[in-house]
């Protein structure tokens, strides 16, 4: 495969945008400290990436939910492929180039845009060429199959982590062994040894991180809800990019403190909270600002995302790092979508609807995401049984041509009208 360097460096664009956001926040009175820390964290992440090779460090590109705690512990610089593709669309508004490049590679258009995007992005040079490619089958076929083509296109070598479907003892053992194999691979490739002390620290922080997210989710139960309407996107990014890192803890603690204060004062995130919503899957990245504005206009806030921000039970043990990483992989909210969609997963929807006093639900039906869309009717029926209406919005997380702001606005308006009339 030939690599034609066309596009400019989008990482630079992301960094610039983050600095701008940080400056804006710092200049605005009453701006949230957590927002400042969020953009600082993001900026730091991408700066590390940009400087990695100059600093003599390796870059490991990886797919969603890959246990990057281990990568951090070995002083290798991680690059989250899907998030970076999203960020690129968000901050540069461009994705035509990279999607065309992926089509030229021969990737079918039914493959979801984040995954087509990242193959194309490597080809055009929009994102840095990694030294290592790490991927796993969390959470779908796309992540499972991304690695080999990317290795071919970038000339890097890589490791595939095979995550088992269920959580039996044998399966957990298989996973822990696989993680061990991955560490060996990274040691061999990087010439570094795994720093187990550092790893334990990371696990400890990871445990703290999950506890903080749980606290934040509890605080969101308040009426009116204190957390910004699309704040859950921030919570996601923090875990995807910087799990167990000091910046993540700093951000979450600041956020938690802000929410505690807001709940104490009875301050809601929108001026008049009218509808409390449950969200499934992801709204389009390029519409986040627009959706924030709609939330304020209609007083509609997403207070709960059962499969995105709701962590499973359990604490992590720093003295058992690999086991903890394995355990965490089963606790992540999305795992309830990946594993068997059993009664526990279904019950959690009903539970959340009650605990969060949900008025309605929105399912962001991403046209390229098979396994989430297959749950639309299932979740709709479950919610209908408890008299909660669900709106389905056909969209795409990265491609702006699928749904326009006008269409989405119309649908949301109609939905809020329906909720009001009840």
């Amino acid at each position: 495969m030939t690599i034609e360097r066309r596009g400019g460096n989008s990482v630079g664009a992301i960094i610039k945008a983050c600095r701008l956001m940080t400056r804006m926040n710092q200049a605005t009175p009453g701006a949230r400290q957590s927002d400042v820390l969020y953009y600082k964290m993001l900026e730091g992440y991408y700066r590390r990436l940009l400087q990695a090779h100059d600093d003599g460090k390796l870059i490991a590109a990886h797919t969603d939910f890959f246990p990057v705690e281990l990568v951090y512990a070995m002083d290798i610089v991680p690059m989250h492929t899907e998030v970076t593709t999203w960020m690129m669309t968000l901050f540069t508004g461009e994705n035509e180039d990279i999607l065309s490049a992926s089509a030229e590679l021969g990737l079918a258009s039914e493959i979801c845009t984040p995954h087509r995007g990242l193959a194309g992005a490597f080809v055009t040079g929009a994102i840095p060429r990694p030294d290592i490619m790490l991927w796993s089958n969390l959470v779908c076929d796309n992540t499972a199959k991304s690695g080999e083509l990317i290795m071919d296109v970038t000339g890097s070598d890589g490791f595939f982590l095979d995550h088992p479907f269920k959580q039996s003892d044998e399966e957990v053992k298989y996973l822990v062994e696989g993680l061990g194999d991955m560490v060996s691979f990274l040691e061999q490739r990087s010439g570094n040894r795994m720093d187990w002390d550092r790893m334990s620290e990371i696990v400890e922080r990871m445990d703290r991180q999950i506890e903080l997210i749980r606290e934040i989710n509890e605080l969101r139960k308040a009426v009116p809800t204190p957390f910004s309407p699309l704040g859950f996107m921030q919570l996601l990014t923090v875990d995807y990019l910087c799990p167990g890192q000091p910046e993540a803890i700093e951000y979450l603690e600041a956020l938690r403190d802000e929410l505690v204060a807001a709940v104490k004062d009875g301050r809601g995130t929108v001026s008049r909270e009218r509808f409390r919503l449950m969200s499934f899957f992801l709204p389009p990245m390029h519409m986040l600002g627009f959706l924030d504005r709609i939330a304020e206009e209609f007083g509609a806030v997403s207070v709960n995302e059962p499969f995105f921000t709701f962590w499973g039970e359990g604490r992590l043990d720093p003295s058992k790092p690999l086991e903890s990483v394995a355990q965490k992989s089963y606790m992540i909210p999305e795992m309830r979508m990946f594993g068997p969609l059993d009664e526990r997963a279904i019950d959690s929807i009903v539970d959340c609807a009650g605990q969060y006093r949900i008025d309605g639900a929105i399912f962001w039906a991403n046209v390229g995401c098979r396994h989430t869309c297959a749950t639309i009717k299932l979740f709709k029926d479950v919610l209908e049984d408890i008299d909660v209406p669900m709106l389905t919005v056909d969209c795409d997380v990265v491609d702006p041509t699928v749904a326009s702001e006008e269409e989405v606005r119309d649908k949301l308006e109609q939905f809020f009208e329906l909720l009001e009339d009840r």
Partner: protein
Amino acid sequence: MNALDRFREVNRSFPKTSQILEHKSQGKKVFGWLCTYVPEEIIHAAGALPIRIIGYSHEAELDEGNAHLYINNCSFSRSCLQLGLEGEYDFLDGVVGGSTCDGARRLFDVWRRYIGTPFHHVLTVPRKFDDKAQRLYCDEVLKFKRHLEEYLGVDITDDALHQSTLLLNESRALLRRLYELRKRDNPPITGAETMEVLNAAYRMPKEIFNRWIQGLIDELEASEKTHSGRARLMIVGSVLTNPEFVKSIEEQGALVVTDELCTSTRYWGDEVQLDDDKPVLEAISKRYLNNFPCARMYPSDERFNRIVDFTREYKVDGVISETVRYCVPYAHDLPLLSKRLRDEGIPTLALDVEYGTSGSGQIATRVQAFLEMLEASGK
């Protein structure tokens, strides 16, 4: 051809074939399985009839399937679900699947909720071939066996497993013999006809199937019938069960001499290596995990190598890749597979299809063009 007609009869009446209804009338059980990673031997050794869950053999209206799985899941999973929701599979006593791909996974999740098949089991299938993966998969097969024993209130003995393995190995050997006939310069059986035989293979008791296919092979070996074509083609891809599709390719003047599909060679691919030293369950699970790989497995070279071997054994001039729309694992494999085949000097025609398509119109035109290109390059 008499032998072929019998297979056609079974296919026509599927899912509720006379063999299945006969089996049920004797008070016996039928278990539906979805992927090639479900060990049929276990079901058979339990005294039940294993049959494959398949969708419509033509492009059908999939309102229910679409509503429950949404339009962006592969038409294969939607077609299976459609049949299930219409009650066509209500004779099943159980369904068994593997955690093989998203389409299959979700089909099972939705099936479980909306169709009341009493027994439901999903095996975790690793994506790797190494020792650790072998151990895990073997454990999964054991768990499946135990679950089935518990449900049916039977004991699946090693002896029974041994017998079932011998029977299924015989089917595999016979299918291999059938395919050997297609290696000839002028095979006695077309690709479309072969597909009809395969379709029947997983819809009826193997005891009967083995007799019938033996009869067919005898007939073919004795017959003078031959087929010729402008080029020798191989179809690769995901799921394909409509013989009309193969027929429409062959009608352009090509010979489909072999294939690599979930419903063909990947089904019967390898035999179980029975070994007195090894427990039979281990032998069975080893066979299934190492069998001709589905695109979900890693590394993909394992699949590619086998495909290339086939092109040499069957003297293939060109490859037609049929990928069902929204079939993600096969779509991802395509760029690297095409590249590999190109390096071997074999051109690929990539077709994006809906499951059940008959291949007329557009597809026929593209196949024509492909054949002309093959001829021009002096195949």
